[in-house]
């Protein structure tokens, strides 16, 4: 089992529904977010291109945050999901420094927080909140180890990229381009 998210940049309109849905689903305090939208614009008017991306923790295969955690609070569970156990976390910030995606933050209560792929929803057979609300259905979630899964098929048939692959962390959020 290897969970991954595939996001179609050709469909994303950057509405940020994924961000609000995550906030209400996971009680993310106002002022913080576990996912966010970036907009990149290239070109010169009127020859312009734009890419909108919903971004979050990449649940890297070689997760530097897990490697550098001194207590084991950051760990990887079944399916390759990177999680943080709040009451093992001392808030040293090493994992935040180590993340090339700047996907982690200090929860106001002190521990480090980030996207969990909505682990609690997966356990109930539901999709992550962001995926389940997206009005454009530009986000797909599934098991990369299953060659017939939607995500595997999309990655097989469509041109795609990952963010900052040069950081060498083997991220598992893929962007269709």
């Amino acid at each position, binding site marked *: 089992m290897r969970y991954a998210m595939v996001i179609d940049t050709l469909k994303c309109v950057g509405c940020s529904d994924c961000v609000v849905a995550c906030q209400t689903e996971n009680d993310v305090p106002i*002022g*913080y977010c576990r996912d*966010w939208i970036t907009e990149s*614009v290239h070109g010169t008017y009127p020859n312009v291109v734009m890419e909108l991306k919903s971004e979050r923790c990449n649940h890297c295969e070689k997760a*530097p945050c897990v490697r550098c*955690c001194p207590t084991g609070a950051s760990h990887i569970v079944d399916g390759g999901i990177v999680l943080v156990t709040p*009451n093992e976390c001392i808030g040293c910030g090493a994992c935040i420094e180590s993340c090339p995606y700047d996907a982690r933050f200090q929860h106001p209560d002190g521990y480090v927080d980030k996207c969990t792929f909505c682990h609690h929803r997966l356990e109930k057979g539901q999709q992550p909140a962001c995926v389940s609300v997206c009005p454009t259905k530009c986000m797909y979630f599934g098991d990369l180890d299953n060659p017939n899964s939607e995500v595997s098929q999309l990655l097989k048939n469509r041109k795609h990229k990952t963010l900052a692959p040069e950081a060498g962390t083997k991220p598992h959020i893929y962007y269709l381009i």
Partner: protein
Amino acid sequence: MQEELFTSGRHIPNIDPSLQIWHWPISLYLFLGGLAAGILFFAALFYILGKDKEYPTAVKIASIVPPIALSIGLLALVYDLTHKLYTWQLYTTFRIESPMSWGAWVLLIVTPLSFLWTFSYYREVYPKMEAKLKLFQRLKFLNSLEAFLSKNRIYIAYALIPLALILGVYTGILLSAFNARPLWNNAILGPLFLTSGLSTGAAAIILLSKDKHERHLFGKIDLALIIVELALIVHMIMGYYAGSQVQLEAMQLLVGGDFTVMFFGFVVILGLLVPAVMELIDLIGFKVPVIVPATLVIIGGLVFRFVMVEAGQLTRYLY
């Protein structure tokens, strides 16, 4: 024109627009760790070489610094944790890949050893204080502890040599292990911080020493260390220069950006070149107040940690 922005308005405290996760306590902690490592290294080395009579400051007197430095350093470290109540979790596991874990454990061993080392010289170095406090009269077991330590001092020294080196290197590796911060991510940082730590240690010994002969020796040692350190800094910059785009941008912070004055002015020139020249002049035989270069080295070392911690957090891959 190229434009990159967050459309969903990300303003996470301490994360955006640039990381502010590690603050001054971490810089201080890295500096004090290096300083303590330097002093302990020299103390243990000269003791093993049997030169404790010849160089009493290095072996005995300066050894008061490491326990204090390490204690303050540890306090600073804990102060910067955001989930302090769970600090004990550090000692429920040892994570071989985590520099932070290494640091926690090394400190757990080095700090008591440094206390023991200092204690073993306590009555010898501070007879007046003992006369007042009369600790050894009040607490009888201290006598036997002191006797035990004096007998086994050589073993502590043998243990301290590698531990001090690990501690010194660790202060650099803590930063360089982060691939995500291009400024930190180079293999030179470990040796560089070790060298800098040894250099500040030597400078501290010079400051505390009243013996001209000893000051002279440590002036020489310090000069050598400064030369090595300068070479390592050149090496580090060359490394950025040959590196990827993100590393080039990171280097820009040091050589042509917000931290240039701090880095070249306070670290390279005032913290390394000027003291090196002064120590050289001193060695040739002209009279130089040694307190000046030694103080400059120590301040330079401190500023260096601040610059690296602050600037490193401005460097990132995305956004």
